[in-house]
């Protein structure tokens, strides 16, 4: 068993459709300065650094960590860069967690970012496809995600209305989030009537494209109190993957997420997720994803996600609020999102979320991942 690890400092940029005032490195610097200040630390106090981003094709700079190291003053430190598609930020945080839990570092800085305004998002994602076998027909992740959402409609009842409720909930929640950049009130009808992009995915089921960075400082129980009297302790964290085109793989339920949550719940002593969690933050690159997470995370049985969103339970004033921050619908700098979700959950259990605090939140669930179902992780945080 490793050491206890807490999140003791957090920082993120004001995300935007396009930040022309800073380079990639400058964007990272903003988030790092804020996280270090929040943890009452300077770079000298940091033992190791993890830098996480999406695919380099997003912004055309290979090995960007070399550039970032100069910009954050991390010369001479142990630095690794980690990438794992949409789940890059979460995977980076997991790597940092292992370093501290394993006793190799007392304080690890994890910074994650993407500057998506610079490149061609869906085309870049299409290059994940097999160049021999299907890339020429790929429409990024959107065509693929829409296809399997369509398949889930018939099997699991994930209707267009249910997904529209998710989109409206998260978009309206984002209005209060000072770091979000898409903040417009939206109704379920607005979502249903928006332009089909890759039907059943419609314009308002889709988050914005964003430039943004987010950073956290992880600390061992030995030194956490120097930064924070009430850290957000990581009670369990896992990230799993599955095969891409194997037989017997239905892609209806996300098996990796079910496996990850089983490990994490056991570590954190969670036996009834619906009752034990006070707040949930998930990475929903399209609204239909959130329905699937309800099921794979055990917030409801398979096939009942549409009922759960319709019941209002996952609204800010429901018994299991999901994405009070607005999730990806407020801002979606893809590589950073896993860390942003951790920051949102951490500030909730620390009781210091200034704009959308869930009163009395003590235990939070975080989900993040990449691809439609391939890479999925979750973590439990509590004060």
């Amino acid at each position, binding site marked *: 068993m490793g050491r206890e690890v807490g999140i003791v400092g957090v920082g993120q940029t004001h995300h935007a459709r396009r930040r022309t*005032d*800073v380079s990639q490195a400058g964007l990272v*610097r903003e988030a790092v300065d804020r996280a270090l200040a929040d943890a009452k630390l300077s770079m000298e106090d940091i033992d190791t650094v993890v830098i996480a981003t999406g695919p380099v*094709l997003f912004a055309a700079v290979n090995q960007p960590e070399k550039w970032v190291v*100069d910009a954050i003053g991390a010369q001479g430190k142990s630095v690794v860069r980690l990438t794992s598609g949409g789940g890059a930020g979460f995977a980076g945080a997991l790597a940092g967690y292992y370093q501290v839990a394993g006793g190799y570092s007392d304080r690890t800085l994890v910074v994650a970012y993407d*500057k998506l305004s610079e490149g*061609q998002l869906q085309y870049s994602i299409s290059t994940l496809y097999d160049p021999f076998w299907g890339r*020429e027909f790929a429409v990024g992740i959107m065509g693929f*995600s829409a296809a399997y959402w369509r398949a889930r409609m018939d099997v699991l009842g994930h209707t267009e209305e249910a997904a529209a409720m998710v989109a409206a909930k998260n978009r309206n929640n984002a209005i209060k989030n000072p770091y979000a950049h898409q903040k417009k009130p939206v109704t379920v009808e607005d979502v249903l009537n928006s332009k089909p992009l890759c039907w059943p995915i419609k314009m308002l089921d889709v988050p914005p494209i964003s430039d943004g960075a987010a950073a956290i400082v992880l600390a061992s129980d030995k030194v956490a109190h120097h930064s924070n009297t009430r850290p957000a302790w990581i009670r369990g964290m896992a990230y799993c993957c599955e095969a891409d085109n194997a037989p017997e793989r239905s892609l209806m339920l996300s098996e990796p997420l079910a496996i990850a949550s089983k490990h994490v719940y056991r570590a954190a002593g969670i036996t009834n997720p619906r009752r034990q969690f006070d707040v949930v933050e998930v990475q929903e690159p399209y609204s239909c994803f959130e329905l699937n997470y309800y099921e794979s995370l055990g917030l409801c049985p398979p096939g009942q996600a549409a009922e759960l969103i319709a019941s209002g339970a996952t609204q800010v004033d429901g018994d299991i609020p999901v994405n009070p921050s607005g999730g990806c619908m407020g801002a979606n700098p893809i590589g950073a999102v896993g860390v942003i979700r951790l920051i949102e959950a951490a500030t909730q259990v620390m009781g210091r979320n200034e704009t959308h605090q869930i009163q009395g939140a003590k235990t939070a669930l975080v989900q993040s991942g990449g691809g439609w179902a391939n890479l999925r992780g979750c973590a439990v945080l509590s004060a």
Partner: protein
Amino acid sequence: MFYAPETAPIDLPTFKSTIAMPYTLTPGRSAGTFLAEMPNRRIVGSRFAGGKVIAPAQDFSPVNGDEPEELVQVPENGELTAFTRVDGVVIGLVRLDGCENAFAHRILADLADCKVGQRVAAQWASEDAGTSITAIEGFVLSPDAPVGEVKPLVGPAEPLGVINYSMALDYDHAYGPYYGRMFDELKENGVVMGVRGSNADDALLPPREIDDITHKRTGTWKACADTGTIRACSLINMEVYGQTRPVPYAYAEIVLDGASTKMIHIIEIDDLESAKQTIKPGTRVRAIWTKGERKGAVSDIERFEVIEA
């Protein structure tokens, strides 16, 4: 004892693929000002605490990450600190007077005349090179170039916010024995072939050496039909960079008869509303082969179409 296995590389044709796309990169304030000042023939550096100057200007000190106190105009003269010749062009590292660092640029001289420590001077391009570092054509050897001084940057230009850039990367992918035979069969015989799972009759497509579920060796080769069933589909109505056909059309993941895994292809549609009714998971489809000589690629199938009940 270590034995080398009795295999050796064989040269075979490759599959050519290109990833190409445009970018809009963000230089940040310092580099953005440096570039914006190029048409004005001023070289901009950044001065950090303690007076150290870096040119071209940078937003963060390469020494400790500090942000610059101010942007400055640096001299056009300096010193050659290293050089080489690439494709007939001499490339050198130049440290401008008063600066801490050296940066790479063309040296407009014969290699034989270059010496480390030699004085050099910027030569501006006679033609308009715009907001690019190539507005400096290169550096000429200039033994008598006076030692310049770093000056305040008076009335700096607005930094560039965005720089247009593009990248095209060519790849030669090796087919390997399994993809090699699959595309050979496609080209020579017009048949889509997979390999049976380790203990199943249905074929894995594309073929592979190891069964993903049992982790055992896959079985014998099997021809799949050119008909199949849609497993998942979406109706593409969005124009994105790199798309090869006009919208709308259907993106479909199809399990061919005789196969256990999907192949990705497209189905033509007339309009979204009717396609929602006719193209669904479970819909039966057939391949429409591309006319003319087959190339041995997935594009030998032009598209799929719905089999009318």
